[in-house]
């Protein structure tokens, strides 16, 4: 095997990787923020008694859950500007696309969580005279959020990893820069290994956090 | 109810000495349990939650490690602790049967297969012979027509009765019951207690952990009150249940009477 490893080359070229990572994180965090709020709203629509709200919400969730992320991202980047006659930066498109995808997954998580909020808490809100909207904001949302946190965090990691697909539509995030670098210095093994470890280094602590949450919950209910 | 004294013929069936067990530092669960049981006895163990009675039963079944102590069965070493490790005689353990609080029937097998699994795989009994015995037992306890049903199709009381039959299929020399009616709706409790009462005719020694004082009165030949990991009282049911000697037992029995109206 006549391949001399040279990880130093990566260190010398770390700048663009770091920039790419910054963009990936920006996009992932922004998408998560959108997806938590939107996911909750869609969950409420899914649980609504009126089919006028349920139908579009269900269609939304099913579309995003039954088609590949890549198709969705391509569709966003190539079709949305044409359809809606808007011009958005690739960063904005990326956040939008990722945010919508993620919100469909979060909607399912929230749906389960909202259904699991104890009835008594909501009844207490009614007894105290809170309006339906106030009940949602002050009782249901906080409780559902607490219940859904492990899944939301896991979905968040998923979003961060899925952001790598944006490299295929020329968004200059971490994956894109990794490919560029690998071609430039002819060192795919070092480049991709290091970048994989970067993704891993960010995903691992969060997944450990999720495990901790679930262990705590199991102990509390034990 | 026969006098527990006259049943003490011969050597002890089970002898428990200085049993100690903790779940880690500062969580002692059994703090020196000593008692003996004799053939034909029906021992009921009562006591508050967390007092150690279920753990005691599980130790007797060989499901738990112990820190100190010795249990002998018919004079032979059964469960012993030495150098931090627990030795359990597998042969003796096989002759003890146990029924648990939460059914634990195997949900993916129907009733008959639940019954014949252990006899066939452990005792290498033929399917035909085990099935025959199983049907006979099911008939005895009024469950014959459920032989092909799956656990999910049975009521709680039926599941527990099947669980008892399943344990009986292995011809145990000693039967342990761990709060077998605690998880049942009140109207299903009687049918299970009926089955256990029917077993008394076979002279099968039993140790029963229960919350049900009335059942304890009817079935016990001897009652143990277990609290704080120790046996605090030990005597005939008339004494322990109606006229306990110790303060703690008195407190407990009074509270239970009041709680159950």
């Amino acid at each position, binding site marked *: 095997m006549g391949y001399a490893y040279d990880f130093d080359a990566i260190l010398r070229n770390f700048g663009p990787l770091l920039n790419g990572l910054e963009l990936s994180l920006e996009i992932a965090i922004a998408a998560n923020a959108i997806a938590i709020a939107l996911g909750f709203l869609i969950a409420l629509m899914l649980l609504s008694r009126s089919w006028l709200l349920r139908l579009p919400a269900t269609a939304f969730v099913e579309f995003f859950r039954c088609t590949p992320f890549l198709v969705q991202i391509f569709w966003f980047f*190539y079709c949305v500007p044409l359809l809606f006659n808007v011009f958005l930066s690739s960063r904005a498109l990326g956040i939008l696309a990722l945010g919508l995808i993620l919100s469909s997954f979060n909607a399912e998580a929230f749906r389960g969580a909202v259904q699991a909020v104890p009835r008594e808490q909501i009844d207490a809100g009614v007894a105290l005279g809170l309006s339906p909207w106030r009940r949602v904001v002050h009782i249901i949302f906080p409780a559902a959020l607490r219940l859904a946190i492990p899944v939301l965090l896991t979905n968040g990691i998923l979003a961060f990893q899925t952001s790598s*697909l944006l490299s295929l539509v020329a968004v200059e995030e971490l994956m894109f820069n*990794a490919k560029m670098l690998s071609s430039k210095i002819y060192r795919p093994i070092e480049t*991709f290994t290091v970048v994989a470890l970067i993704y*891993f280094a960010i995903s*691992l602590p969060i997944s450990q956090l999720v495990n901790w949450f679930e262990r705590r919950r199991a102990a509390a209910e034990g | 109810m026969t006098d527990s004294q006259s049943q003490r013929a011969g050597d002890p069936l089970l002898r428990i000495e200085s049993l100690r067990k903790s779940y880690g530092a500062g969580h002692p669960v059994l703090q020196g349990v000593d008692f003996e049981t004799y053939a034909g006895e029906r021992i009921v163990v009562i006591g508050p939650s967390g007092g150690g009675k279920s753990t005691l039963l599980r130790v007797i079944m060989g499901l738990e490690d112990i820190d100190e102590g010795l249990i002998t069965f018919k004079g032979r070493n059964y469960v012993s602790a030495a150098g931090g490790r627990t030795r359990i005689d597998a042969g003796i353990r096989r002759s003890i049967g146990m029924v648990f609080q939460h059914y634990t029937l195997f949900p*993916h097998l129907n009733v008959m297969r639940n019954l014949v699994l252990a006899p066939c795989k452990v005792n290498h009994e033929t399917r035909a012979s085990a099935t025959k015995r199983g049907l006979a037992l099911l008939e005895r306890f009024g469950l014959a027509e459920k032989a092909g049903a799956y656990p999910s199709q049975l009521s709680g009381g039926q599941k527990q009765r099947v669980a008892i039959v399943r344990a009986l299929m292995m011809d145990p020399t000693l039967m342990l019951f761990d709060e077998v009616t605690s998880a049942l709706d009140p109207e299903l409790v009687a049918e299970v207690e009926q089955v256990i009462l029917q077993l008394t005719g076979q002279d099968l020694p039993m140790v029963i952990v229960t919350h049900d004082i009335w059942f304890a009165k009817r079935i016990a030949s001897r009652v143990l009150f277990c609290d704080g990991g120790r046996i605090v009282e030990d005597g005939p049911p008339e004494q322990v249940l109606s006229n306990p000697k110790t303060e703690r037992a008195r407190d407990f029995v009074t509270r239970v009477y009041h709680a159950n109206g």
Partner: protein
Amino acid sequence: MDLDFHVVWTFSGALAQGLRLSVTLTVVCMALGSLLGALLALARTSGSLWLSLPATAYVELLRGTPVLIQLFWVFFCLPLVIGFEPSNFASGVIALSLSMGAITAETFRAALRSISRDQKDACAALGLSRWARTRYVVLPQALLRATPVLLSNTITLFKESALVSAVGLADLMFIGGNISNSVGRPIEVLTSVAAIYFVIAFPLTRVVTRVEKGMLRKLAL
């Protein structure tokens, strides 16, 4: 804006071929991946550290990195490491199977762990040996519990298979992307491609729900 879906129809043959590759990849990689996952799950739940540590490391690593980078690694780095270059298709199979292995390992592990301790106690009380317990009580239930999740994993794999287009494998996504570029009608083509994926994945999700409900009922979980 005029939409012309007829254009898509003229390419239906090519799209069908792409779909065939996607489906083939899904089936093959699910089979290989499940096998790998089962072995990994057994390794992780075995008592031995020699087995469980590497297995856990593998699963954590593959689940903590994007599938795209795993794909790139297999396509660009593996040939350098092993000294020869597998065919595109083989590389795709390797990458996706390795990824599915990690996912199904978690599925199997969760199924094994969900068998309650009470069941194992009942086996001990009946005198069943550890082997008999595993073979007759634990494994059958674990497989039953894992089935709906495995089906769901298959749907995920079908969607993930679209990534192989990024390394030049002529699957549905690749062909769709090419057509879209060559006729300059991204909306019609990409929508159709999405619809094809949807038409296959959606009914499968309904099947998963039904299997789940049926199993829940039978096992009274």
